[in-house]
């Protein structure tokens, strides 16, 4: 297949960056206030996305778009509290069934960053790589969480 397969080095690159960021975020005192917790949570999530995008590099459209989004989010956040990424499906399962191929591919375009204006062929290509990297990210984060839970 022509899509790049993320090898273990992607995982190690991501883990290294992410751990560094995580330690930086959690190094301060762990305040109990919900706002602080939420802010920390958001920082952790952004760090996860950023580490993944940087580990992948700029060879893929979605990683470039992700980095760009993070940078613009940072700027916007300085001025006011910007809304974070939401995982709300815009269409329920029923509506997904009614939508045609084009509607579904548009739906997929919203999910995969940086895939606007792509034809179906390259969209599928991008999606495949994105899925692989996401799976690697989830696996790595789970490992971290597990190792932190049970030392």
């Amino acid at each position, binding site marked *: *297949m022509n*899509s790049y397969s993320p090898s*273990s080095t992607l*995982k*190690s690159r991501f883990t*290294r960056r992410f*751990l560094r960021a*995580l*330690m930086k975020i*959690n*190094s301060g005192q*762990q305040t*109990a*206030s*919900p*706002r602080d*917790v*939420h802010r920390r*949570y*958001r920082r*952790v*999530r952004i760090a*996860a996305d950023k580490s993944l995008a940087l580990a992948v590099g700029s060879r893929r459209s979605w990683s470039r778009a992700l980095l760009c989004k993070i940078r613009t989010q940072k700027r916007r956040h300085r001025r006011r509290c910007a*809304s*974070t990424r*939401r*995982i*709300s*499906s815009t269409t329920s*399962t029923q509506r997904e*069934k009614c939508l*045609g*191929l084009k509607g*579904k591919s548009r*739906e*997929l375009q919203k*999910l*995969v960053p940086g895939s606007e204006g792509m034809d179906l*062929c390259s969209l*599928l*290509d991008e*999606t*495949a790589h*994105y*899925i692989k990297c*996401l*799976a690697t*990210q*989830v696996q*790595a*984060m*789970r*490992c*971290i*969480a*597990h*190792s*932190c*839970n049970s*030392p």
Partner: protein
Amino acid sequence: MAMNRALLPEMLQCTDMTVLDRQRARFKWQQDHNFQQQVQENFFGELGGVFSVPNPVQGFQNGFDPVLLKPDPEMENGWPNFVGFGPCGYGNGPGFDVNYGISRTASCPPTVAAAAAAAEAAVENRELALPEKITSLAAKESSKKRKLDKLQNTKIVVGEDDPKEKRIKGSEEDGESKKTEQNTNNNKTSSSNSNNTTTKNKNKNKKENSADTSKENSKVSDVQKPDYIHVRARRGQATDSHSLAERVRREKISERMKYLQDLVPGCNKITGKAGMLDEIINYVQSLQRQVEFLSMKLTAVNPRLDFNNIDNLFAKEEFPANTANNNISTIGMSSDMNNPASFLQFYPVQQQLISSTGIEMSMINPTDMGLRRTISAPVSLPETFINSSCFTATPTWDADLHNLYNNVTFDQGRSFTSQPFTGPIEASNLKMEI
């Protein structure tokens, strides 16, 4: 008529040849070469009675002497492979896909000129019959596929060192790859190629070019410079460039869909792009939710890991709670993250931690297929709210997950007090610090 194989080595020595003789020799080489690959049977069956000259071909059935195919340095100019061919012109590798119908690749023998040259000096009597047969064959062939003439690219094969292997590889590639061909590009390249060769071989090549494009439907794969993509028109299908390009595009899409089917778990039974796209969308959403959930978990963690421990991390990749986590964490997502301090403690590993500190948090017991919430008196826990609309449990996921989803009932209006976090966070700090 059958060419005597023993004569061929002698023929190789001769360099004087006419165009037609070269063609004949090439044709013979083609037949022989293709017989080795055992492709002929398919075409004999397909073409039916078109090919009317089985005899000369059979003479080569014993296999071609590979010695004869050594590259002839004299012929480095390259020859257009205009061998008139019947069914034997389909010199593809073992991976040839018969579904493509009659292919048009003819692999050019490296010493085609040498063989052709040799053929000239040889028995011209016997060879007189061949060109007629070739033309008749070609006529019958071309009558069926005249439209495809435009799409055929007659590329000049540049003879170089060890070209034989390259050509065989090239023909195999041609047979196996699915590519598109564009008319204008083809014509331009073929004309430019022919121009190149005419500067070297002048008259002969020109004649061969014209003869070829008008009569014969051969195609040579130029391994060194694949400027364009070859496509085979299937039998009975439209052969104009638009539909060909469309077909290639569709094949690319289906190829990628198959690849995605391997990536996304549980898609083996789903056929059709719509269902696959649904599954892909769901899977991407679930992965993104998992990332959010895990980052939420890691917010409370203080990772005092050295980078030496990264190896330990990777060693624990296959830890057994993985599958359970997968089931549970996928529903641990809230769509409304703006609520301050949403903390979902669904992680089963944390149960031990939590219970050890005397705090009972809401937990999922997968065996119970239900969600229990117990809040101890001193600590009231924040709760996350699952927006059920954002949770799309598909039948391809585990049954546990599905049942859990059905049993989950959350009320979304719960407010959250400022007190609760000290308890769990301190506890987690106690236990999670390394």
